[in-house]
């Protein structure tokens, strides 16, 4: 998948789960502080990322802030950092 395809897939996933108050989803929309991602969604997001990168994620390797926004998710899981 290209970078733009991955980012589009992530934005689509986030948009589908955004509260009404969040009208526009960008790659720097805060996902945690806006409560778009809670414990109810975190497993689904992990599965989506694993599917998009076609590789598993070790939950023990998750670090604070890695789901801050789509930019951070891409940098962490798709740009060779993890």
């Amino acid at each position, binding site marked *: 998948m290209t970078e733009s395809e991955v980012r589009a897939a992530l934005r689509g996933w986030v948009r589908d789960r955004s509260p009404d108050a969040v009208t526009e989803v960008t790659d720097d929309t805060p996902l*945690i*502080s806006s*409560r778009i991602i*809670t*414990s*109810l969604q*975190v*497993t689904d997001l*992990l599965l989506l990322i694993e599917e998009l990168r076609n590789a598993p994620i070790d*939950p*023990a390797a*998750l*670090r*604070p*802030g*890695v*789901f801050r926004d789509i930019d951070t998710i891409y940098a962490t899981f798709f740009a060779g950092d993890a």
Partner: protein
Amino acid sequence: MTALSGPLLTLVDDLDRRFTALADRWRPTHVRFEPTVSAAFLDRMDYFRSFPHLFTAAVSLADDDATLESFVAGEPVVDGVLRLGALAPVTRVLSPAACYPLYDHRAGARISGREHHTMAATCFRREAEYVDWERQASFTMREVVCIGSAQDVADFLAEARMAVDELTAALRIPVEWQLASDPFFRPSRNPQYLMQQIDPTKHEVVYDGRLAIASANLHHDHFGRIFDIATTSSDSSETPAHTACLAFGVERWVAAIVQQHGPDPGGWPVVAP
């Protein structure tokens, strides 16, 4: 644990009075709950799947003649183990945390502004091993809870950390704040644990690099959503309330004071408020 008396008992009582005095800066509602919580309530917060290894249920024999006759006809206790027969439906659990019943108590509440509550409770957790004062099957927890907006609880936690820093300095207990996570069962499969990894919400006050004597915990709107607690704004719109708590493990403060200042009460700092 041996019976508490004399200076140690005074220290335990003084510590709780000191924590209560600390809590009073927020003008909290003082509240006390019974020592058990309903299983149905704990299930709503998914407690049993998260901490199946920790809870202790309040059990009774089934209330039928056959069960009771069989029980009294045999040896009730063999090698220290109570030989129970059929059980009555188990609906209550010994409270695992002082603040949990509050969220049930405030279920459905509509809040304008920020509210605070404080409560103490004997709490129960089954552990792999026990150490007097440091890790007990039952222990005393004093908590202060803030309910309000996201900003309200963030402000509360900042204030709470400053208050704890002032207290540990006054009692001359050297501590450091550390990130922590709750002891989830099979954590790598638990969404709440995964969430704590990516968004740390628990900070512990650690003495001697190993003993957590207090913690500051952010719950976001987790309890607000589960128990329908909401904040209202001037235009009457409602938002799930955010909550946070500051918790003190009373016996662990005793352990820290005795270890830091020695067993002679004459060397202890003044703890009473």
